């Protein structure tokens, strides 16, 4: 199916442009006009992908996006393991996001660790009518009694909180004082704010700035002696253990990781981060805000990196090392050399099985671009990609460092568009989320969830790349796809949308 072998770039571009025009036909005129701005065919040499982004989703189109609460509780705050995160409002938000993101951690759950638990104020009608502040205060008291080893509390606002005028900041301040300066963080991540998860990331970052950093006593005795090689991992949520398979490489090259944001992270790590000499930033989208803040306030430089696939890992290790002395630079080379044999073996095993296969992606923060290198290490080609909640700076990075000429770009893709694109382009693999997985598998198209690693992982680092390669192979080369067609029926092209 590998189109790249049979079609020229010009042909692909023409086909993709035609495809865009075709999908736009389905919309009412006003919607077509708005959606047209989010779809494009990448032109090599351009500084961005030529699409509008970070704009409101259009009602009724089946956006794949989530909300600000998902960005704050689900992404940024939820993994901080020694704090209790209250889903403040009705029961649903906390229920649907309960332990669903596979942020791995070590700890005694329910005693000193709380990640895979669902704490909620379970709002009832009376809380909406009379306000939930008193209930919130009582919840904090009950937490102190039943979970005495918690190291802090965050209040993750659901939609009603901002609409009914609750003052969660006042409650948090009062309770913090009552409990001897305990860290209690009110977060204004109501789901209706902003246009996607993205604002939730920003609000969550700001809450760490205002309610964690600004509360740290500058005269407090340091919990550890700093070294010239202290770094913090920013924007790795340890999904399937990603942050661990990254941390090990940084430590092997001679750096010392003093904090993980926020996968397997603790309040102590957040508080200690301003002591880092460098912040290394994986998910730029969700944590560039706090990185910029630490640069401005504490003078800590930050460096984006990409730990998907050996090419990008080596490039990233060298870039990170460039901020340090020769000892670390040599360390980076030593690490690259150490894993070379493993990488050669992985590629020798899997590349012949995957060479020339095409991929279409639609994911969240960094993956629509970051994983492209890993696919290319396996000889695969990403022919379409897009961001659920990216901003223009994401599309700039994508255009300048990742995608090839003619790649189909779709921002905040709708269910209809994605199906149409995949139906027509017929990639060998689609990488997206749980809501998309079964749509494409029904069509007989191999699929991997690229948010949760389809319950596998880690995919970061050298150890992770071996798993990534194995998983892509098992998705594409699974015997099941040969059976999708009923043998006694005449072959027909896959059709979509029952309505057509």
């Amino acid at each position: 199916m590998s189109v790249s072998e049979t079609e020229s770039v010009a042909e692909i571009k023409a086909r993709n442009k035609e495809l865009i025009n075709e999908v736009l036909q389905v919309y009412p005129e006003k919607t077509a006009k708005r959606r047209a701005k989010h779809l494009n065919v990448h032109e090599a040499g351009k500084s961005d992908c030529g699409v509008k982004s970070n704009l409101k989703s259009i009602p009724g189109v089946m956006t794949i996006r989530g909300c600000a609460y998902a960005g704050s509780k689900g992404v940024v705050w939820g993994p901080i393991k020694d704090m209790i995160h209250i889903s403040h409002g009705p029961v649903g938000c906390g229920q649907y996001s309960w332990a669903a993101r596979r942020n791995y951690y070590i700890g005694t759950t329910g005693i000193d660790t709380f990640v895979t638990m669902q704490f909620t104020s379970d709002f009832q009608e009376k809380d909406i009518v009379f306000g939930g502040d008193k209930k919130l205060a009582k919840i904090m008291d009950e937490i102190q009694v039943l979970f005495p080893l918690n190291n802090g509390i965050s209040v993750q606002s659901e939609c009603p909180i901002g609409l009914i005028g609750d003052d969660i900041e006042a409650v948090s301040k009062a309770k913090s004082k009552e409990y001897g300066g305990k860290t209690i963080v009110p977060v204004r991540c109501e789901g209706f704010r902003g246009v996607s998860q993205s604002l939730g990331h920003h609000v969550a970052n700001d809450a760490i700035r205002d309610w964690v950093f600004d509360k740290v006593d500058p005269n407090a005795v340091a919990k550890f002696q700093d070294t010239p090689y202290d770094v913090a991992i920013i924007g790795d949520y340890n999904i399937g253990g990603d942050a661990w398979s990254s941390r090990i490489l940084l430590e092997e090259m001679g750096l010392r990781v003093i904090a993980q944001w926020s996968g397997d992270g603790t309040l102590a790590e957040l508080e200690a981060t301003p002591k880092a000499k460098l912040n290394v930033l994986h998910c730029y989208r969700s944590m560039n805000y706090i990185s910029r803040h630490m640069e401005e306030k504490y003078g800590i430089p930050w460096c984006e990196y990409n730990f998907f696939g050996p090419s990008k890992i080596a490039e990233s290790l060298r870039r990170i090392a460039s901020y340090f002395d020769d000892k670390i630079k040599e360390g980076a080379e030593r690490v690259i050399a150490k894993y070379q044999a493993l990488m050669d073996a992985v590629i020798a095993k899997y590349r012949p099985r995957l060479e020339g296969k095409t991929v279409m992606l639609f994911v969240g923060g960094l993956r629509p671009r970051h994983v492209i290198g890993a696919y290319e290490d396996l000889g695969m080609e990403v022919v379409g990609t897009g961001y659920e909640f990216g901003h223009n700076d994401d599309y700039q990075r994508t255009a300048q460092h990742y995608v090839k000429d003619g790649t189909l770009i779709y921002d905040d893709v709708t269910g209809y568009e994605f199906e149409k694109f995949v139906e027509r382009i017929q990639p060998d693999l689609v990488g997206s989320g749980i809501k998309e997985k079964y749509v494409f598998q029904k069509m007989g198209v191999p699929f991997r969830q690229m948010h949760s690693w389809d319950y596998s992982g880690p995919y970061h680092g050298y150890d992770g790349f071996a798993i990534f390669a194995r998983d892509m192979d098992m998705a594409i080369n699974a015997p099941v796809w040969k059976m999708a067609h009923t043998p006694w029926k005449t072959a027909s092209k896959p059709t979509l949308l029952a309505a057509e």
Partner: protein
Amino acid sequence: MTQNAENVLDHLELFRGPEYQQMLANKRALFEDPRDPAEVERVREWAKTPEYREKNFAREALTVNPAKACQPLGAVFAAVGFEGTIPFVHGSQGCVAYYRSHFSRHFKEPSSCVSSSMTEDAAVFGGLNNMIDGLANTYSMYKPKMIAVSTTCMAEVIGDDLNAFIKTAKEKGSVPADYDVPFAHTPAFVGSHVTGYDNVMKGILEHFWDGKAGTAPKLERQPNGKINFIGGFDGYTVGNLREIKRLFGLMGIDYTILGDNSDVWDTPTDGEFRMYDGGTTLTDAAEAVHAKATISMQEYCTEKTLPLIAAHGQEVAAFNHPIGVAGTDKFLMTLARIAGVEIPEALALERGRLVDAIADSSAHIHGKKFAIYGDPDLCLGLAAFLLELGAEPTHVLATNGNKAWAEKVQALFDSSPFGKNCHVYPGKDLWHMRSLLFTEPVDFLIGNTYGKYLERDTGTPLIRIGFPIFDRHHHHRYPVWGYQGGLNVLVWILDKIFDEIDKSTNVPSKTDYSFDIIR
């Protein structure tokens, strides 16, 4: 280095290697500012005590690990049971992403649903424009036969009026004037997912029967002999509704299943994505008004729907998710009485086979203690089945169960000698259940996937029955209703019991004597 290309290790094994173990130990010691392990151990033990249980049960405000979801989830569940219907949820868009993910994780199926994507401006000015644009877009793009509108808490808090909004949207040409857009207000801060199911089911029937929001004449009931069937919110809907159809077929009853989502959540992989599949036809939904009677399999999923139906002159009967012999007997006999048919011999045989299976196996279940949690009706069905197996449903807990439900469960306990030492816990959560399992241990726990945390912490083996089940595959394809369904539940319980016996008798030269080949 632990990793190798020939035998790739993922998270299941990778991190157990010495390099990672050392790394994680260093992280903890140097940077996590961990609690004193002795203190952690002390609190861990304290959390198992009656004293902790008392404090835990004294909670008035905090909910920890609830076994319920919000109304809009049930709304979507009900809506997709109708032919070519897309659920349209008016409010914030993140909610819809959550419902779709939740259902896809349980059924391993696509779950189509749209949002009106309300944001801050809609919070200030109301979501009318979102409704107008949203309906037009959904109608053009996905060509549904019906759009079923429900709400999120955001739209409810700001007070959006669905009836007026849909009317205006039609006037603005979003969808044709005579196009079916039933609606229901489904505030997340009232009730639970079972309430949302009820509201949408009622909303859809009201739409078809009572004049389509003032745009058509009300239907005049002309009674026929058909029976309507409503399954309620049910994680086994795929297997159960197919079993129900088989039973109706065997009995020769002309029926309509209202809200049949057994096909849309069990579509084949054959090269085609079916956004819509099966479902109650809109004609059948309308004509269901003429039926002789309506049977609800789950009373607490139809608390508002059944009175509406009764008010149209039908006989109604509600069950509590019947599982097992007596529950199925009552269901079939009621059905036969209402429909005026005889129960065929084939079903008597099936009944006999279930009784036979229970007779064969009950020695292994008799006297065992169980804790159950789940939706109110499911709890009643399971508890009744356990009682007839001679087991004790020691703790029965429903976060979304109310006082009336608790009385019903108590009455069930009182009906059997095996219910003597059993207790019911309405409105409690799984952190309460944790205290119960520590202070009054049982042999087995029955619940959904989240029960695995209780299994880990308390050592109580978990039998996965309920919703959602994310970490085991395909059980939703099996019925738990009817005698065949009872057999499935019996087997699931027995499999766990036998696995546990084997697990506790498999130490060579220590417990060899009970590691039996025949049980």
